[in-house]
């Protein structure tokens, strides 16, 4: 080929590469991987938050490190549009993550308080929202209603609505919002924890509708992706644009909480919202 395609700008890698040591994306420090993992993927030197998967959040938040029961974990994606490469991409994502879909939900305890927890995993097609994702969120809300439990969602959904399921993905924005409404009608708490990155259709539906919206530090959060904005306005975006701290300053987040403090913060907030031990 005569012309080589210009390499697309990739954001700095937040995932943990293979090997014994990891170089911190932010401060460059060589970190012993086991130490980093013990610190829930937060750089001990500069507090940089690496992107974490569902296993990390389960260990971080749940008392027993796992769910006492899962919700709708049998659901699997179909390919309603017969979309190019979708089936293969699903299989590949399943094989590499060991997950069936980008979202999981279950019942567990946080500081002895029983909650429904909804988690998404960026490794699985960018944590994008397709029919199964939307359905699991909705059923998680129904479980919360039936058991009188609060719901906490932790999202890392850079893809927003999943393109491969076309209009069906878009409709999940309404379904998940309906789920939040179920909780609102019952006066049950919904706390939305947004992590790097939560964008597009996820940010423009349930993830923005928590009684409290909390972010991890430095997460990319917003509606349109930075590249799309730059192409539209033909300008470079200022540093920190669409990051957690920016969003809080603009009035769209209640607080930015470091990963290591997330669990204690959630326990405190659930207490303020009237969640009692042994409620269900």
């Amino acid at each position, binding site marked *: 080929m005569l012309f080589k395609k210009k390499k697309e700008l990739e954001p700095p890698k937040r995932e943990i590469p293979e090997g014994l040591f990891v170089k911190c994306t932010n401060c460059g420090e060589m970190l012993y991987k086991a130490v980093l993992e013990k610190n829930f993927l937060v750089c001990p030197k500069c507090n940089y938050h690496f992107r974490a998967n569902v296993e990390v959040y389960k260990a971080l938040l749940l008392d027993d490190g796992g769910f006492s029961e899962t919700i709708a974990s049998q659901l699997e994606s179909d390919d309603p549009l017969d979309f190019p490469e979708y089936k293969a991409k699903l299989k590949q994502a399943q094989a590499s993550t060991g997950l069936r879909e980008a979202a999981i939900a279950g019942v567990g305890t946080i500081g002895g308080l029983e909650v429904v927890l909804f988690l998404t995993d960026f490794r699985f097609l960018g944590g994008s929202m397709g029919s199964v994702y939307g*359905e699991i969120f909705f059923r998680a809300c129904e479980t919360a209603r039936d058991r009188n439990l609060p719901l906490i969602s932790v999202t890392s959904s850079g893809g*927003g*609505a999943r393109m491969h399921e*076309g209009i069906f993905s*878009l409709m999940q924005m309404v379904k998940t919002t*309906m789920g939040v409404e179920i909780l609102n009608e019952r006066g049950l708490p919904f706390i939305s924890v947004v992590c790097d990155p939560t964008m597009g*259709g996820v940010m423009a539906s349930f993830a923005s509708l928590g009684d409290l919206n909390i972010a991890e530090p430095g997460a990319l959060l917003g*509606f349109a992706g930075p590249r799309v904005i730059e192409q539209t306005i033909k300008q470079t975006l200022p540093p920190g644009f669409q990051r957690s701290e920016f969003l809080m300053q603009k009035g*769209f987040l209640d607080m930015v909480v470091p990963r290591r403090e997330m669990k204690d913060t959630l326990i405190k907030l659930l207490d303020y919202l009237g969640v009692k031990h042994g409620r269900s």
Partner: protein
Amino acid sequence: MFYLEFERPILEIEKEIAELKRIAKDNLEVWGEIRELEERAVKLREKIYLNLNRYQKVQIARHPDRPHTMDYISSVFSDFVEIHGDRSFGDDPSIVCGFATVESYKIVFVGEEKGRSTQDKIFRNFGMPHPEGYRKAIRVIKLADKFGLPVVTFVDTPGAYPGIGAEERGQAQAIAESIKTMLQIAVPVIVVIIGEGGSGGALAIAVGNRIIAMEHAIYSVISPEGCASILWRDSTRSKDAAEALKLTAQDLFEFGIIDEIIPEPLGGAHRAPDVASRYLKEYLVKNLRLYENFDRKKVKDERHSKFRKFGVVIE
């Protein structure tokens, strides 16, 4: 009149007809030829318009001469009274709101407007709303709920605006709130996709009891250009992306996402706007009639059960 690439053969014949008409005077032979050409033009239009591929549909949905919200406001409604502003930041001309009357029905209207002339397009931001546009919509939709008026929305947008100000003012939050409000209200909502249904920016005003689309309208989670650049890193493959996304009114009807398709005159709404308006009005009235003396709880529940079903999963 603007002609799309695949409409060129029609343009050629029309030029020929116009030329012959100019010189025909009372020459019967020439008039015979004109009639013949006119018949050929109709056949050609049928051949082209009844066999459109998905990307051609996208182009018609975005056709610069296609009737927009403002055109339909004047041709379908009477006594339109515009309502401005979100009472917080400003007035977004990309979304037009107001009270309107269609036959015997008084409604609250929300519609996206792309603009016609260059100046108007800039004023309307090419139909790409900012958060204040959605917040204006939320406000008037709540107004409709309070006073028991049905809501009619016209969807026609490339998408919510991707810009600095839009992000700073909470584009995502505004769309989420708009969806939530449309779920909360207890009056009927009729959604008409008149042209381009661009993702979340369209959905924000498209949570309806009835969702209907014009024959050449599209509705998609992402633009074909955006899809192509993600999928193949090549935005010129939008034709393939349009096929993959299955975004035409006919696809959506087959998926059960939309309830009805409003026919358009042959060659698209822009070819005969008055005919298009008549059809649109007919379907709008027909759908509003379904909700005469509606029960507040029932219309809300109906909307919820409708959206509860959307999605395809393997249990």
